[in-house]
């Protein structure tokens, strides 16, 4: 298999050589036989697939099986691995942090995906109207999705700063204005410790993940909205439909195929999110905001317990496999219709 990419290269140059004047007839003959061989669809097909499949094999399929093996061992960094069966998993199932993490992951994924879908849809509807600077606005709206998540996450960390930063400054301002308005003294307002309190920290990571994902939903939904024929809305107007009725009975059914794919894709990415939590809370305070990915990182890379870390990461797989399976069946159903 390894020789195949090389022969692709020679075959490419052979194409130009054959069509140019061939100075050496004996070279022509073997080049011609290679190019004749490449005329076979199956040969060419396998050859073109080789680079992609090779990379997938070495860097996805092999690591995956290695991960399954690691999760069944007590492998520590730079120590030999011993097979210990399912003990990593039973150990995890007995730990409080693991179940908190599983619940966090479910809650985080569900809330962030719903928020992104609803707000993204709203923004898409707004962007679908004829406005001035439409292209410019669309381009800037995508910025949160373009820039490195950890870097914008840093800006959020600083915005969440309880003492010196905008959120609590704004809240204090509101508090004092109310005091002034009612001529009362409510006492000193400290404001929430956004990243220091478990519930607020969860709220914060959902907020940032939503902020980052809204543009993706909005722009994808917008592409769907633009395929809805305007006549349908005119017909709705004639029948006296309200804005909401038109939205539910015309827009939603027509963009459903795109919406399903967008939501499933975002579900996978949100479920496996790492960056937002790593930058905002590192799973803290007191391991209360870990997602499966960050817990796997902490166990595997932080404590060097590769076996247990691999087991946590692998725990994502059944959920992802269900989604992939469902998606494959759904796509097949769609394409057969």
């Amino acid at each position, binding site marked *: 298999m390894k020789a195949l990419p090389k022969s692709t290269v020679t075959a490419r140059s052979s194409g130009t050589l054959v069509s140019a004047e061939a100075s050496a007839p004996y070279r022509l003959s073997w080049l011609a036989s290679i190019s004749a061989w490449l005329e076979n669809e199956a040969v060419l097909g396998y050859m073109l697939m080789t680079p992609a499949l090779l990379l997938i094999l070495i860097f996805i399929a092999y690591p995956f099986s290695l991960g399954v093996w690691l999760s069944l061992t007590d492998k520590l960094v730079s120590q030999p691995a011993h097979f210990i069966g399912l003990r990593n998993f039973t150990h995890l199932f007995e730990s409080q942090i693991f179940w908190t993490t599983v619940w966090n992951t479910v809650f985080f994924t569900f809330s962030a995906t719903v928020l992104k879908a609803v707000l993204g849809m709203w923004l898409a509807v707004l962007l679908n109207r004829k406005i001035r600077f439409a292209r410019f606005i669309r381009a800037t709206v995508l910025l949160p999705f373009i820039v490195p998540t950890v870097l914008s996450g840093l800006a959020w960390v600083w915005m969440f700063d309880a003492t010196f930063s905008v959120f609590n400054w704004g809240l204090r301002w509101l508090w004092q204005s109310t005091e002034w308005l009612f001529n009362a003294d409510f006492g000193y307002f400290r404001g929430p410790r956004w990243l220091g309190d478990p519930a607020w920290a969860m709220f914060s990571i959902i907020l940032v993940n939503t902020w980052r994902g809204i543009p993706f939903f909005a722009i994808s939904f917008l592409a769907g909205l633009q395929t809805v024929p305007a006549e349908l809305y005119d017909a709705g107007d004639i029948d006296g439909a309200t804005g909401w009725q038109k939205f539910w009975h015309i827009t939603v059914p027509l963009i459903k195929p795109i919406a399903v794919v967008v939501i499933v894709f975002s579900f996978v990415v949100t479920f496996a999110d790492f960056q937002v939590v790593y930058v905002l809370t590192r799973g803290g305070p007191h391991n209360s905001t870990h997602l499966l990915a960050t817990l796997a990182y902490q166990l595997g890379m932080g404590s060097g317990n590769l076996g247990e*870390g691999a087991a946590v990461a692998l725990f994502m797989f059944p959920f992802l496999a269900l989604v992939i399976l469902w998606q494959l069946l759904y796509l097949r159903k769609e394409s057969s219709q």
Partner: protein
Amino acid sequence: MEARVGETFRKRLLVFYIPLFLFLVALLFPFYWMLVTSIKPDFELYNARNAPFFVWHPTLSHWWQLFQNTLFTRWAWNTLCIATASTAVSLFAGVLAGYALSRLIFPGATSFGIIIFITYLVPPTLLFIPLASVIAELHLLDSPWALILTYPTFLIPFSAWLLMGYFKTIPRELEECARIDGATRLQAMIKIVLPLGMPGILSAGIFSFTLSWNEFLYALVFISSPQQKTIPVGVVSELMKGDVFYWGALMAGALFGSIPIAFVYSFFVEHYVSGMTGAVKG
């Protein structure tokens, strides 16, 4: 949708202008915040009484500090090289696979398509621990090649998937004409399909480039020496050391790590958008 009949200005303000304005403020404020923080002197930065939205005594000292006292320029160079190389690798493999899967009939083509689709949905967080062992076995730890070779694992499925859809829209007849004129299959692909597929290839390329520029987890796990880091990892791990964070310099790092990719993106907005929506539609 044009201005609707019977819609008063007040209603339009309420259901359209105000929500859109709020969306834009919410989506763009963090970037304003990076800029404003990076040019604030420390005595303004750590003063709870000042209105935090403005700068009274702007200073470039944090920018200066970022470029003089940290390895930021080195990280920027690393990021650029790694993103370019991994994009090139992915485009090469993705174009070939996309062409094969959309044009050629061979046994197993459908299963290859499914494999590509499955890997499209495998997140890096699932595999990073065993992948670190693989990288160590290949003696690539702490080398840019670790990232150049692993980024394509999430870029190729995306590119191949996008390009499959794109190549299908190019009429088969064009290729057949070329073949009647004596071109081989490869020649027809290189001289007919690839030039016509350029917009799709550009979309896949710009999308891959931004994804590699932003990648964090693999760079965090596979690279350890400060010299070799990429911008996202360098800023987060090297500038956030200790208990005291220097927010001015950190925000300058966040700003200058975002500007290049936003700049590249601004030239290819349409390609980027069509890449994104094309990948969703499949």
